[in-house]
Each structure stands twice: as structure tokens, then as C-alpha cells.
């Protein structure tokens, strides 16, 4: 194993910090941790962002199949009580992530690259849309 920092929690924390700086602290959650959802205590926050980070496949040109880099995919779901609130969260998330370089361990990632966006629509008790992003470390 040669690729740097493969603990997805470390990646999640770094991205959540960047998002919180734009959308506000206490507004970035993992799936299953949102107050008022999934049987959790409290009320559903008016505006919040759901963040998932997963390692993605990267091809290797080396016969040893060793990787010196690792590829990652970030999915953000921005949620609000109105389309406008969800769009606000989307814009802030975009500002936070677009072209941003993450510092993880001793390495700096490639600039975060936008992959795709889905429009905002009714989603349970709220309205939400989503975007995905990729980067390599």
C-alpha cells in the first residue's frame, strides 16, 4: 500500500471543515447523524449539507499495480426548506469546494473538480439537490 492517507474519515473531516467555513458550523452531517431524521433526537435543521466521501477507482500504468496517488469522489446533498434555501447551500458548497486543494497529512490534493449536479426538488420533509466532485491525493 503506497497511496497516502486512505482513511476516509480524515478526508471527510477536511472537506467538512471547508464546507462549514461557507455554510456555517453545525450544518454539515454524515448520513444517519442528522437531528430529527433516522430516529435521532431534535428537529431537522432548516438548512444543512449531507457529505459522503469515497475512494474511487484509478487505473495504474505500473506492472506492480502500486499507486502513489489515490482518487476520491465527494458527494454533497444540500437541503433547505425552500428551493431558495437549498440553492443558497448549493452555492456556498460550490464556493467551498470548487478548485479547492485539501491538505491531508503531508500532502496537498489536486484541485477539487466538479463532476455533476442534480437539480433541487422535493425530498421528504425538505427540498434538496446534489453535486459530486472528484480529486486525487
Amino acid at each position, binding site marked *: 500500500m503506497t497511496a497516502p492517507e486512505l482513511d476516509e474519515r480524515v478526508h471527510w473531516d477536511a472537506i467538512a471543515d471547508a464546507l462549514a467555513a461557507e455554510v456555517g458550523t453545525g450544518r454539515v452531517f454524515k448520513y444517519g447523524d442528522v437531528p430529527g431524521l433516522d430516529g435521532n433526537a431534535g428537529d431537522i435543521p432548516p438548512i444543512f449539507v449531507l457529505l459522503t466521501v469515497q475512494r474511487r477507482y484509478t*487505473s495504474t500504468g505500473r506492472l506492480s499495480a502500486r499507486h502513489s496517488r489515490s482518487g476520491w*469522489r465527494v458527494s454533497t*446533498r444540500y437541503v433547505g426548506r425552500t428551493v431558495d434555501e437549498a440553492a443558497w447551500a448549493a452555492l456556498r458548497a460550490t464556493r467551498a469546494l470548487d478548485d479547492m486543494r485539501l491538505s491531508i497529512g503531508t500532502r496537498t490534493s489536486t484541485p477539487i473538480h466538479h463532476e455533476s449536479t442534480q437539480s433541487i426538488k422535493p425530498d421528504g420533509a425538505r427540498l*434538496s439537490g446534489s453535486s459530486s466532485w472528484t480529486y486525487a491525493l
Partner: protein
Amino acid sequence: MRITVSHNLADLESDLRKIPRILRKEGRRVVQHNIVEGNRIAKAFASEQHTMFGDEDIEYPPSFTSEMTGPMRGEYGPDAAIGDGSQAEGYEHGSINSPPHNDLGRSLDQIAPEFGMDVSDLVSSLFWPES
């Protein structure tokens, strides 16, 4: 030993006549091969979620299909008209209640570099058909 390659304008002219014909046939083959492979991979990811780890919407993976939509254009993914294909948006991109599966995104991670190389090989082969 010496290898001598000689060409003249007649060869070039004949190559240029052949290229559009070869490109139409081989271009279609490259696109078709890649959408079939991309679909196979995405469908495998979907099967993992819906048949290995659970049986909810078990008809979702069979909705993954590929088709040519033009001479050198194709698409693959869940078809809303087949089985549980209409659930695709919720599974692919997730919702407030469930994280995204990214079956298509993950298949692209594998297919996109291969597709690029296939196209590059095809373009080279147009001028060096024997190689």
C-alpha cells in the same frame, strides 16, 4: 539491415479515401464496446446493492441497458421503462434518507480512461492500418 518505407501521393490519396469508411465502421465498434462494458460494470455495482446486500427493488439491476443512439454515439444506464429503472435517480444520486450509490459514476471511473485509449488507438490505426 535497413527498412525503407516509401510512399507517394497516390498512396496518400487512397488512404484518405479509405479512412472515412474505416472510421465509420471502427468508430461504431469502439463506442459499442465501451457502452457494453460500462453498462456491465454499472449493472454489477447495482446488483451488489440490490441482490447481494438486500432484496429491495430487485428489478433495478436488470433495468441497466446500453444502446447506440447515433452512428458513433451510445448511452448506457438504467432505463425508466424497465423494471425498477424509474427509481434510478434516488439510487444513483441518493436523497435526504439514503447516500448516493454512484453506480454510473463508478463505472465511468473505469471506462473513461479505456475509452480514451481506444479512441486514440483507432485514430493511429487509420494511418497505420497494419500495426
